[in-house]
């Protein structure tokens, strides 16, 4: 006889194999740490002369003790767009789908407080990782992902100390807090018509305190003749998160099959889940040249995405649903260059360019994240007074059109074409 155990196994397989990875762009890192930095491609590691250096190089704060107490607040409006063109065998040649348009607002809030003319303590809140994806209800990748939201909040404290007139270091600690919500459908073969049928919708959602500690450090050396050199490091961290999973039954039209599924899936209420996510470290070195009017800066960095090798999702009370998904990401290098012109005491202008290699193998590309090596062009301006500065920058992130090459581990092959306009805005107050 066909036992319920076999049904349970198949249902479990339908859950596990489709548990998605928590992955978004450039991996899923965000570099939106301030509008001035955003206007010059984030090339602040060797510059470090405003509060956004708290993300790029904490040592830079040591050279800002004469600015008094500073407060920067801002956001970046991100409107990711993505079009998917399918190929056979699934979802088929000619199939296309557009990601639902969404707008995200990662924040940055920085406070710098000079202790004396060599030491500054600072506090920061920003989003170093995040973003989300959503597809229409009729999307054929619905068994992989329908909607996903992930956001990491970094609450940091750091100190920067000027060892000499030309050399400073900074160190900081980061409290990382994560929220995750993933929704998708579960598909099974309906034995009565041998057709793939949607039998449930499931949502995995974080709850409680899903957090971890990390640290960062940097040095900044003003070498003379306008040149400066900086290096910084932000550590990796691991979120061992708790959450819950809910399953909502989708009737197939066959009461017998639906009834049997009701004995297998926990349709009423929620069940606990546990997940472990490794986030990468990030190191940078930069070189800059400045005079009274110009700043020219470049930097090279690597995100250590090779820590993201797998994603275990554990159902403590439903171990048959537990899974470990292979990711096998690689470290990802990036190049950035930026130029700033200080036209007069109020206005300054800047442009930048960056290239950021994808860490994601083609096999892992999915509707949740189809990452690609990206180029971005940006330009911005600032208006400043003695106690106030407003920065704004526009950035066009243009990932390469990338195909899964028939290698999708989800069996969802095709070409992803994405772009994201970003609008950075920051206000800085000096007290």
């Amino acid at each position, binding site marked *: 006889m066909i036992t319920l155990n076999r049904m349970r196994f*198949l249902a479990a397989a339908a859950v596990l194999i489709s548990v998605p990875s928590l992955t978004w762009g450039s991996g899923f890192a965000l570099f939106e740490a301030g509008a001035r930095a955003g206007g010059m491609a984030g090339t602040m590691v060797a510059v470090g002369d405003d509060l956004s250096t708290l993300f790029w190089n904490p040592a830079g704060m040591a050279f800002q003790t004469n600015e008094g107490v500073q407060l920067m607040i801002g956001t970046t409006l991100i409107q990711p767009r993505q079009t998917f063109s399918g190929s056979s065998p*699934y979802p088929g040649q000619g199939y296309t789908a557009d990601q639902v348009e969404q707008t995200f607002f990662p924040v940055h809030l920085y406070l710098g407080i000079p202790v004396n003319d060599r030491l500054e303590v600072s506090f920061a809140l920003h989003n170093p990782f995040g973003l989300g994806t959503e597809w229409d209800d009729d999307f*054929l990748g619905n068994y992989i992902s329908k909607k996903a939201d992930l956001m990491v909040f970094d609450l940091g404290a750091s100190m920067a100390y000027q060892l000499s007139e030309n050399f400073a270091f900074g160190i900081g600690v980061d409290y990382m807090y994560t929220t995750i919500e993933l929704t998708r459908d579960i598909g099974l073969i309906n034995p*009565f*018509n*041998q057709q793939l049928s949607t039998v449930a919708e499931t949502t995995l959602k974080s709850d409680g305190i899903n957090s971890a500690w990390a640290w960062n450090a940097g040095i900044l050396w003003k070498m003379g003749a306008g040149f400066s050199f900086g290096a910084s490091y932000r550590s990796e961290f691991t979120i061992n998160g708790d959450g819950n999973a809910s399953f909502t039954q989708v009737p197939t039209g066959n009461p017998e099959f639906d009834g049997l599924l009701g004995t297998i899936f926990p349709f009423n209420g929620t069940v606990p889940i546990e997940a472990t996510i490794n986030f990468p470290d990030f190191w940078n070195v930069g070189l800059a040249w400045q005079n009274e009017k110009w700043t020219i800066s470049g930097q090279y960095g690597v995100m250590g995405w090779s820590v993201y090798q797998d994603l275990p999702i554990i159902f403590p009370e439903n171990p048959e649903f537990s899974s470990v998904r292979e990711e096998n990401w690689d470290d990802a290098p990036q190049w950035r260059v930026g130029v700033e012109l200080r036209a007069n005491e109020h206005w300054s202008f800047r442009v930048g360019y960056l290239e950021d290699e994808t860490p994601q193998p083609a096999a892992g590309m999915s509707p949740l994240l189809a990452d690609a090596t990206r180029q971005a062009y940006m330009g911005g301006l600032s208006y400043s007074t003695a106690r106030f500065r407003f920065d704004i920058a526009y950035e066009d992130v243009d990932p390469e059109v990338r195909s899964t090459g028939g290698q999708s581990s989800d*069996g969802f092959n095709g070409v992803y074409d994405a772009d994201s306009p970003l609008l950075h805005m920051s206000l800085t107050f000096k007290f």
Partner: protein
Amino acid sequence: MKKTLFATCLVVLLATLPAAAQVDFTNYVALGDSLTAGFASGSLMNWYQDRSFPAVLAQQAGAPVFEQPYISEPGVGPIFELVALAPTPIIAPVGLIPGQPTNAEYPYPYNNLGIPGADLYDMIFQTGDINNLLQGNFENVMFDIVLRNGINTALEQAIGLQPTFVTVWIGNNDVLGAVLSGTAIEGVTMTPVDIFAGLYSNTIGALYTNTSADIVLINLPYPTEIPFATTLDPWVDIPGVGRWYLVADTGVLTDADLVTLSAGDLIAQGYGLPGGPPLPDNLNIFTGEPGVVLRPDEVAAINAQVDAYNAAIAQAGAGFFSSVFDANALFSGIVSGQNVPTYGGVSLTADFLLGGIFSYDGIHPQRIGYAVLADNLIQFINAEYGNTIPRVNMAEVLFEGDWQTPGVSPAKARETVMSREALQQLLQLAPPKLDQAPRIRRPSPALPGDISRDPRRKPDMIP
């Protein structure tokens, strides 16, 4: 200047020549058994024939014609349906009245010459006459449906068509009987390896010699891995007793034993249970009643037989410059989980009823399984011959509903996984050679005399 002109002409010439290595689907012929015919859920029926792997392959490759011996609903024999799922799945034929041929007047041999129930010997030597069927004689029904003229065998008709491309997937029924009867006896339920190897080599040699077709051979999966053999556990949970290992007439079963779907009906009657009669382990050679248990040594013997057949297939492929598609690896990869077909996050398995690959008979694929096979074969042909055949759109396949026949009432429910009628229908596919052993025991090594005909002559007309 002359050199440049010559080089230009050469480039133009090469560019305009067809890629000689590519498979030409102008006249594609599929030789084989039920798996080639598109047999599913115990039946040969038009809905599934249109979804057979050769039909899908021909369609994807743009073959101008691919004719099949269509049978109207509910097929021959009447197709199985799932009558109930819980507490015990019940599978039975939809009725007793079979479908009828709808393409018997086609004046040439069919492109799909897959004959359900045919083994290698049958493909070479067996004929069929449509008049038998029209007169109500169903004894040789599948051969009568496919071959029709009463004169030419499947191999002869294939050669007569002078195909440009041939697939050969034969040999499954040379070993399937061992699983259906729960008994592995070479010469009775399995064709001896030396006979198989000799016949197979001669068959491919005949195709190679008498046609100019590209030939793709398809090797054999292990029949011990099909749901018919892997679905039932060797034990049952009995309230108040706990896990009870079934008892066969050769002793208590263990976890290493396979219990075939044939046992479902018997277990429901108390066979193998406390106080009940034992399950028949092996084929009763006097009554023909099948055994329902495969012991580990039998499983090993069946798999070794398949390995030996596959070695013969590989040897024939090498000897006659024919490619061999590894269906054994494809299916074993699905069973083991090493190569699971996954589409849009949904993985198909070899599990019965819910896995998506197999039909209700537990032996043959359903349309999704045939499409997976065709898609893998397309990839193989593209890689092997440089074709650019588009892959199968599995989204269309997965979301397509199964065959439905309004007005056909469900068969009477039975308290078993598979009804006795359904089982008997299946057992006819590869009956043990109890009364006709000489036919396969020592066949003449010579092929039919008219097989070495002029390869350029016109195809035979079918009356």
